[in-house]
């Protein structure tokens, strides 16, 4: 231990100059490999916009088109005329579902995370371990009884069937608990108690403002997850008139479709909102994923 400490002290000046001191300099080959990886990642997303802006004849040409064309709005208007897919309803429903779940997750997960990190109560550790264990349970396997339950309570083909089960998650509670236990000092809580704050007021006025960065990341991750959720909405909403956008996509592509430009207009529109979110908040999303990785 001492030798490690000494070497840290000896090298301190160099470390201050660069946080990444000691890392190898990237070679041109590294850049080349990373550019290839980025290109492969971006290409299918780029290409869905290419196809969405072409006519079907152009898509079937050899070689296939690699540059966008001028038919995007034609394709979109044909998409919106498609009565079976209900694409606009799907977009609106997905926005509602993802927003409601995001707000609810941020509230309930941070509240429970705060309780686990900073409050004393009997059985706390056992309950926390239980929550961690639930993260490894493949919940998808319960969709058959879940479906029966929804039929029973009359929620089948209603939006609440894809909202209510996701209002709070073990992942979110654990993430907020990890952040709260290091970001909030016990003195801060005690000081608020001395001032006569109730526990909920402490949460609302003291804890929640401190948790804001982690809450934002949780909100972003949950918004994306809900927007993209497929298997359960497919079971719960596939036959009604309240599809989410993913269910609309599924209806578009059902059957042996040949109208690629129409389907791809839907694909591009369904992906566009999240790509915009990612470009704006990419740094925070990356930070959240990487911090979670170290703590887990």
């Amino acid at each position, binding site marked *: 231990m001492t030798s490690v400490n000494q*070497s840290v002290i000896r090298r301190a000046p160099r470390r201050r100059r*660069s946080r*990444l*001191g000691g*890392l190898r300099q*990237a070679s041109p080959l*590294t850049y080349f490999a*990373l550019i290839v*990886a*980025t290109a492969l*990642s971006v290409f*299918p*997303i780029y290409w*869905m916009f290419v196809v969405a802006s072409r006519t079907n004849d152009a*898509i079937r040409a050899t070689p296939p088109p690699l540059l966008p064309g001028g038919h995007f709005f034609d394709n979109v208007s044909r998409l919106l005329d498609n009565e079976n897919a209900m694409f606009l309803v799907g977009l609106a429903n997905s926005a509602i579902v993802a927003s409601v779940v995001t707000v609810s997750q941020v509230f309930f997960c941070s*509240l*429970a995370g*705060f309780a686990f*990190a900073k*409050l*004393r*109560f009997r059985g*706390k*550790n056992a*309950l926390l371990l239980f929550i961690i264990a*639930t993260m*490894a*349970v*493949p919940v998808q*396997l*319960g*969709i*058959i*009884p879940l479906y*029966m*339950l929804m039929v029973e309570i009359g929620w089948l083909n209603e939006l609440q069937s894809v909202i*209510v089960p996701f209002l*709070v998650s073990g992942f979110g509670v654990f993430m907020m608990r*990890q952040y709260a236990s290091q970001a909030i000092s*016990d003195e801060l809580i*005690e000081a608020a*108690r001395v001032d006569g704050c*109730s*526990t909920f007021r402490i949460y609302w006025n003291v804890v929640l403002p401190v948790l804001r960065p982690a809450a934002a990341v949780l909100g972003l991750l949950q918004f994306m997850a809900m927007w993209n959720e*497929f298997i359960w909405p497919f079971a719960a909403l596939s036959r009604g008139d309240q599809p989410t956008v*993913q269910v609309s*996509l*599924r209806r578009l*592509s*059902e059957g042996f479709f040949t109208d690629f430009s129409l*389907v*791809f207009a839907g694909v591009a529109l*369904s992906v566009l909102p999240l790509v915009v*979110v*990612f*470009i704006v908040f990419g740094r925070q999303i*990356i930070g959240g*994923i*990487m911090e979670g*990785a170290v703590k887990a």
Partner: protein
Amino acid sequence: MKVELDNSIVGQGGASPPPRTQHTASERQGRNRLANWDIKYSPYLYIAPFFILFLAFGLFPICYTFWVSLQDRPILGQGEFIGLDNYVDLLQDENFWNAVYNTVGIFIISTVPQLLTALFLAHLLNRQLRARTLFRMGVLIPYVTSVAAVAIVFNLIYARDYGLVNWVLGAFGVDPIDWQAHKWSSWIAISTIVDWRWTGYNALIYLAAMQAIPRDLYESASLDGASQWRQFWSITIPMLRPTIIFTVIISTIGGLQLFTEPVMFASGGGLSGGTQRQFQTVAMYMYEQAFYRFDLGYGSAVAWALFLLILVAGVLNFLIVRRISDSSR
């Protein structure tokens, strides 16, 4: 998964109950009772929403799946208890074993290259780089797209007649491949969809773990004359062991439930996974039995079989990965 439970337990044990401000006796008593109640019981109120929802929509359905699997249960009407008959049928069901074979096959040919590539990418990203954030965003962007949308895109990329892949292969003189028609080709195509989406995500997880490795380890290894490769194998890999185990377990749980990619990749979008069931997974088979054949009991038996498969594969992978990363020490 390593969980930091200990410090908070120890840290909270010593905290004394908070002092209170002075008021008249009766007022104080009432207030104290309220405050005591608040301190003692309100935590349960705060964590209750998770437990209520999980019991209602998570745990109950999974347990109830087992009860349903013991019944002959059509989607409409009452079920009839038939004991283990569904499971007996399942063991002799060729289509079920075919689905298990497909699921495990696709899982292996997607996960192994995916995690190795992610490790390599993380190794590249863990250097002094210009445009660091841009490259990280570049490899992560597939993660924000929906599987359903992307699988449709790959359906066209792998199309027999106008697909990009066949066009590129054609330039090298390879005859067009009907990707969905064969087991091997459809497995490869589906694996690329999975890998396209998850490789960058896993790379960032590995990168985070690499950055937590103390630099001094590498410095003293360099002084001892260890090569870059030797350092990677003898320092990086052993230090990443918990993270590698974590990603393998997560990939196992997710990979064996594979559903959306093959469903949306299939032209026509059927749940049978091609004309000969060449890429039908267990999750698809469960769905087909329950919601297309309306046999909830049999579908539930498939669900439990899948649950067991995940459990066995999870334990197996844990043991394999632990042994491999032990030997690199």
